[in-house]
């Protein structure tokens, strides 16, 4: 399954990229699975996505929780809590 990943703000800077297209293993079916999979990359990935870290996610431009399902071609974004206004 291919998905497009987007990172913003502090996470974009720490991960060193704003977007990537990834081919995730079959067992990655939810955002929780995706986070677990990304965490295996080590370094800033493991550190920034560790339990207790404050980040938010969106699937296809709608805010979503860890339980949300992801499907082929989805756009998944990971970013810090928002600070606009």
């Amino acid at each position, binding site marked *: 399954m291919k998905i497009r990943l987007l990172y*913003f703000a502090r996470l974009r800077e720490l991960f060193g990229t704003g977007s990537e297209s990834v081919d995730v293993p079959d067992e990655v079916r939810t955002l929780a699975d995706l986070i677990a999979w990304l965490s295996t990359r080590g370094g800033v990935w493991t550190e920034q996505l560790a339990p207790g870290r404050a980040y938010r996610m969106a699937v296809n*431009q709608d805010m979503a929780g860890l339980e949300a399902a992801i499907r082929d071609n989805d756009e998944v974004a990971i*970013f*810090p*809590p*928002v*600070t*606009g*206004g």
Partner: protein
Amino acid sequence: MKISVQTEPFDLNAEVAALHRDNPAVGAVASFLGVTRDVNAGLGVHTMTLEHYPGMTERALEQIVREAETRWHLLGVTVIHRVGPLCPTDPIVLVAVASAHRQEAFQACEFIMDYLKTRAPFWKKEVTPAGERWVDARDSDGTAAERWQT
């Protein structure tokens, strides 16, 4: 409904006039202007950069306004949020709400700002004498948004 995410400044007179000029049923326009401060948690801010998530940001703002429209009888809403580099005293955000009576306009305007602060994907980075830093989300903004969940 007018939603805009833009780098350019906006004209408050023009935006507010557009909400009531051609609609004589409008009795009230409540508006909120957010302005770049030079002091945030004690550090002098020289400039600020606003990042957003193109596509989702506009979509989130639209959803927030639609939610407000289900709660109050509104006669027009404008939300403009600037992105890119900003200096102290530069306006960042305008939320203007028109309605027949003031209570609806005030409440909807405050509701939209509270939700914008917690749900619309914008991120502020301050450039201070001590270097750059991403602004942390304020707990009080989460609390402000929660009070509408009744």
